């Protein structure tokens, strides 16, 4: 008994040894750039604060950029200026653009030497999404996906059953219809059954659920597949939510009050987003709410949302930056972010622990995020993906707001993105 305690103690010492050795070598200042709303940023601030206590030799400056598209441009400008932040949080849909330009440091060597980070401890889907050209360019913090946040009070009021596992498009539509209401009797709706952004990343799960692929070849994509008959069906269903059924706000209504605000203000019943809105909803929602999986059609499917910690090649303090990346993705770091509600941890052990699943922390059914992992699909990695996505989104938006018919929108999205795939 006594021996084993000494043995454990020795092992602990051994584990600490490399950390002690490397500590003096990696001091100094680093900057860490993140995107997100105030509640999300508070989450990252907690992570940084804890890190500072354990690593007083490294000072971390947090740079926050609220909008994702501003964030991307900020990063590009910084990289072009030769002075990017030392640690940047990048979505996997954007990593290829930076990695292919050689702007990110491959982390394989750091990983091989690390005693805290093991690839096997992470969900493989999420880890693989941050490889480029065979190299690991970022460490994923999460394995989030598109889900539905629903306002239980509105469901109760309307006497509609909560979304159940395995529910279908038809179930979803009829629930949304029952939850869309003209509250003040002026002839237009103020409460909507659903709120969803008309974007490629939102329509993608519907395309997969209908039984189509999104691109012709995931490893080597050359075109979008939005012109298959299944994808066209999905596009029609998605766009008719607005144009035919009016269960989501039209362009004017969305401009007056964005769906996220409308949900927080208690007038959207089902809001589509990834895990990242949880801190904001926890802070702002004054009603009871929960999460549900997406409805399904021919098959169930959802879409991976993941952000990774990356180390720009131009960073001047890579060792200290790696110490931070390592900490952020250690069990301790991932626990902190999971507690704030921001992430679905990419570390399997934390994701399956009460830290993430505790039903007393809303949403009560965080398990949904883990249940959908087997049916999760991943967007292809392509340097021009931002262009492809933006262009397709423009067409989808047009169809969604009834400026053109769904088939035309889907076909145009395919045509207009083709050149970006081939890198003309």
């Amino acid at each position, binding site marked *: 008994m006594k021996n084993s305690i000494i043995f454990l103690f020795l092992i602990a010492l051994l584990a600490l040894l490399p950390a002690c050795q490397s500590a003096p070598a990696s001091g100094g200042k680093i900057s860490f750039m993140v995107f997100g709303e105030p509640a999300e940023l508070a989450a990252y601030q907690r992570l940084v604060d804890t890190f500072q206590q354990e690593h007083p030799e490294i000072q971390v400056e947090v740079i926050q950029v609220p909008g994702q598209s501003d964030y991307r441009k900020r990063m590009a400008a910084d990289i*072009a200026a030769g002075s990017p932040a030392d640690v940047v949080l990048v979505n996997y849909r954007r990593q290829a653009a930076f990695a292919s330009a050689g702007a990110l440091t491959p982390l394989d060597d750091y990983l091989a030497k690390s005693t805290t980070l093991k690839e096997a401890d992470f969900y493989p889907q999420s880890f693989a999404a941050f490889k480029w050209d065979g190299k690991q360019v970022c460490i994923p913090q999460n394995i989030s996906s598109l889900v539905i946040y629903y306002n239980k009070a509105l469901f109760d009021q309307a006497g509609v059953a909560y979304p159940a596992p395995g529910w279908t498009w038809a179930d979803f539509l009829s629930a949304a219809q029952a939850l869309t209401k003209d509250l003040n009797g002026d002839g237009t709706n103020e409460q909507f059954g659903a709120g969803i952004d008309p974007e490629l990343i939102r329509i993608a799960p519907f395309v997969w659920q209908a039984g189509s692929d999104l691109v012709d070849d995931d490893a080597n994509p050359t075109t979008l597949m939005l012109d298959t008959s299944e994808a066209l069906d999905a596009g029609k269903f998605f766009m008719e939510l607005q144009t035919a059924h009016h269960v989501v706000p039209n362009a004017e209504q969305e401009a007056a009050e964005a769906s996220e605000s409308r949900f927080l203000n208690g007038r959207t019943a089902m809001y589509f987003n990834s895990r990242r809105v949880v801190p904001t909803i926890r802070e702002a929602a004054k009603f009871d709410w929960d999460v549900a999986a997406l409805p399904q059609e021919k098959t169930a499917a959802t879409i991976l949302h993941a952000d990774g910690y990356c180390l720009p090649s131009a960073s001047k303090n890579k060792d200290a930056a790696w110490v931070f990346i390592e900490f952020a993705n250690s069990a301790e770091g991932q626990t902190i972010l999971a507690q704030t509600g921001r992430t679905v941890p990419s570390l399997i052990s934390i994701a399956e622990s009460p830290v993430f699943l505790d039903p007393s922390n809303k949403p009560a059914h965080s398990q949904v995020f883990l249940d959908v992992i087997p049916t999760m699909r991943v967007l292809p990695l392509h340097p021009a993906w931002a262009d492809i996505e933006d262009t397709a989104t423009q067409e989808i938006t047009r169809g969604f707001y009834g400026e053109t018919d769904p088939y035309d929108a889907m076909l145009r999205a395919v045509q207009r993105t083709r050149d970006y795939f081939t890198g003309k």
Partner: protein
Amino acid sequence: MISARRAQIFALLAPYLMGAFLLVALPAGISLYVSFTRYDGVSTPVWVGLQNFQLLRIEPLFWVALINSLIYISQAVLLRTLAALGLALLYNQPRRATGLYRAIAYLPTVIPDTAYALVWLWILNPLYGPLNLALRAFNLPAPAWLTDTRWAIPAIVLMSLFQVGEGLVILLAGLRHIPRDLKDSARVDGANALQTFSAITLPLLSPWLILLTVRDVVLSFQNTFTPAYIMTRGGPYYATYFAPLLIYETAFDRLRFGQGAAIMLIVFAVTIFLVLALYFFFESWGFDDD
């Protein structure tokens, strides 16, 4: 002695000349070079000759942005000049309240662009914005403004019409230079107000109008950036996608600095062309009466 004086004059001018070289001439030179290269901001630029320009010729977004910019400029410059002219004529008479009227007419020009864009985003909100609520109160048609492809540019032109303070000042200065007795003698000759205006005021004002419109053309090119960035992000469906936004996104979203520089050069060439066209237009028209 003389050379010492020259050295001193040169010292007075040095910051300006240095700035003009460092901030204008040098960047312009680099733009010229970069526009012939493929450059992602990270790796070294690769010379590609005219490829950037050839690709732009078949890039639909480039044409959309250029045409949008030209549509905006033609509408905004014309209407803004007319608005400034009207205000200047109205507020030219020295009267007690005139100073206050001028100050208030200038006031919207003082609002910072970002705040101004946000305010108008609210004013133009199709459902709850004060403008449409007012239009509906009078039973007038209330367009969806920034969410309607046909009304988005007119909406941005409309908001630019409230910021004509600088034009007002320039034209007031011009009107002050017109001798009063010239107008008086015209009136004695029996000319009515309209005739005096077209025969005397307008020709004498034309140098100032040239200054104003030329300046407005140059400014209108770049001034579309803030409204497009804050209010519409170029939408709906590229309706407000202007050249500056395209340059910005080409460089910082698509990491194509070479192509961005090529667009900058084209914008510059188009501006010069417009300025020269305006100059010749005014020249022929201003000297008609002589």
